[in-house]
């Protein structure tokens, strides 16, 4: 090979790869425990009566959502940023001591934050606002972590060789700005210890908004945490990794720019669909509905763009499990961005809201789209950052099919459960009385909860296969030369 004085430096990307895998397993393991608890309540005390406070469904539930969102997904976002960012800007982290130190600080502080979150949620220290459960000291730490990431992004952009910003970078910037704004406003809170002159628990705070206003701000945040955590950065990943792995140029770069602006414009309005038939003003609910449906366009813009990128190269889907992961991810993205707007239609929402159908929707999005895309990204990165071949292609294939089966079991069972329960809640007998007591609508779900738990368990098994494959790649994969890394990732049978 030629003499390379300068190479991309993936130190920080590697660190975040580790937490992606680790927190992915933690988050999904907790999820599987929760699923079994719903199917079989005895599981709530699986560590004995003494530990029941820390193992019961309600205490673990925020830990599951936060570990998957802020642990697994965010680690994946950071990890891919520290990889993709350098490459598309054509600048190495090794060129700046400052950025290197910053990146490492970013990682370690993030890790401290993760530990604090796990401990505090298990202790029951929570604000109760979904995906914003952390009390003020952790909020401050998170803001610092976020600012560090921001400085990293703009620092790298500032010293770039490539003048134009690749579409993925746009999406990463939008992730940074979007979450920053949403997080700060939703977590406006007043520490009671200081406001009352030193009484009570020091970590406790009270929300700056009350009732309906709090709900509005929360779902403006909650929905857009999905937008800017589960959609925008994942789109950033697919715009880089799919073309790179397949060796195909993006089908239409113009369409990618359009979809970007469309998504930015529309997504923020859609939060109102979480509050249909609540006490927020009607026009806001209707607007939430309408914009949710408009949202199909930019979402599909990106998804179709990706599928068309594979035009003429579909044999790659059959031959490469890595491409399989990404194509299935964009398919699930289309599917889930169609399902979401359907649920946001008022008459559908009347049945679907508060039921398991919503849970199903979240999971076909997160398991099928987000997690598949993150794992595909890590698989693509592994040979490049470790300079080794992916350990086992057959293991990847196995993982793919196990997890796909898991997702399918998950969302089909939750559809049936959700619609069943939604219909039973509203059923009346011929005299106009409610046909079912609430508990009837719970016991009927038992088979679906069991199927869901099985689906989740399959997905978790796939996750372990993923971790094992990554570990073996890192330690035992065949060493590869630079020229094997141009497009399709090298993988051993």
């Amino acid at each position, binding site marked *: 090979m030629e003499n390379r004085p300068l190479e*991309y430096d993936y130190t920080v990307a590697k660190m975040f790869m580790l937490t992606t895998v680790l927190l992915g397993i933690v988050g999904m393991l907790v999820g599987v425990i929760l699923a079994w608890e719903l199917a079989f309540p005895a599981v709530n005390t699986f560590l004995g009566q003494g530990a029941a406070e820390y193992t019961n469904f309600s205490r673990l539930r925020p830990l599951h959502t936060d570990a998957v969102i802020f642990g697994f997904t965010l680690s994946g976002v950071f990890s891919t940023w520290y990889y993709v960012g350098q*490459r598309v800007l*054509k600048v190495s982290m090794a060129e700046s001591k400052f950025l290197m130190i910053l990146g490492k600080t970013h990682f370690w502080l993030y890790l401290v934050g993760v530990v604090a979150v796990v401990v505090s949620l298990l202790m029951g220290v929570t604000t109760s606002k979904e995906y914003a459960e952390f009390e003020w000291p952790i909020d401050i730490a998170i803001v610092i972590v976020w600012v560090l990431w921001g400085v990293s992004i703009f620092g790298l*952009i500032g010293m*770039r060789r490539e*003048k134009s910003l690749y579409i993925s970078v746009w999406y990463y910037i939008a992730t940074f700005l979007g979450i920053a704004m949403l997080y700060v406003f939703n977590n406006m809170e007043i520490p009671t210890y200081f406001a009352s002159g030193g009484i009570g628990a020091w970590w406790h705070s009270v929300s700056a908004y009350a009732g309906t206003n709090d709900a509005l701000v929360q779902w403006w945040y909650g929905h857009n945490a999905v937008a800017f955590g589960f959609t925008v950065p994942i789109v950033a990943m697919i*715009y880089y990794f799919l073309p*790179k792995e397949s060796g195909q140029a993006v089908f239409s770069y113009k369409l990618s*720019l359009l979809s970007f602006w469309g998504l930015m414009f529309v997504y923020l309005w859609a939060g109102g669909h979480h509050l249909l038939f609540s006490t927020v003003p009607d026009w806001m609910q209707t607007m939430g509905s309408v914009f949710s449906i408009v949202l199909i366009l930019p979402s599909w813009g990106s998804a179709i763009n990706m599928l068309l990128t594979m035009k003429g190269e579909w044999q790659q889907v059959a031959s490469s499990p890595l491409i399989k992961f990404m194509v299935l991810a964009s398919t699930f993205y289309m599917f889930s961005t169609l399902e979401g707007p359907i649920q946001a239609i008022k008459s559908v929402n009347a049945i679907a809201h508060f039921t398991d159908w919503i849970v199903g929707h979240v999971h076909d999005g997160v398991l099928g789209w987000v997690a598949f895309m993150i794992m595909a990204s890590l698989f693509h990165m592994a040979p490049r950052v470790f300079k080794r071949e992916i350990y086992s292609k057959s293991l990847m294939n196995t993982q793919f099919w196990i997890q796909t089966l898991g997702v399918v079991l998950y969302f089909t069972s939750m559809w049936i459960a959700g619609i069943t329960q939604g219909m039973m809640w509203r059923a009346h007998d011929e005299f106009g009385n409610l046909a079912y007591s609430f508990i009837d609508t719970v016991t009927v779900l038992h088979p679906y909860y069991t199927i869901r738990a099985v689906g989740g368990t399959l997905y978790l098994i796939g996750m372990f296969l993923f971790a094992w494959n990554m570990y073996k790649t890192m330690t035992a994969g065949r060493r590869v030369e630079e020229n094997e890394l141009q497009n399709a990732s090298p993988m051993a049978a």
Partner: protein
Amino acid sequence: MDIATFQAYGYFGITVFMVVALYGYIYHLYSKKKDAAGIDYESYSNMALNDDITDEPVNKVSDKETKKVGE
């Protein structure tokens, strides 16, 4: 004018503005085909494909230009 009316007008006005901007952008992209630097938009796909540190950038940051962008 009470606040709800103001809200409605603001909402309507901004929505119209955004729609115009978005469609203007579509028109701009497909009529111009090239950006201000004279580079075909589609060639930006190569930023992902040729992303080795020794590859030639699609649109190089020239040495004499001051780096005032970003921060």
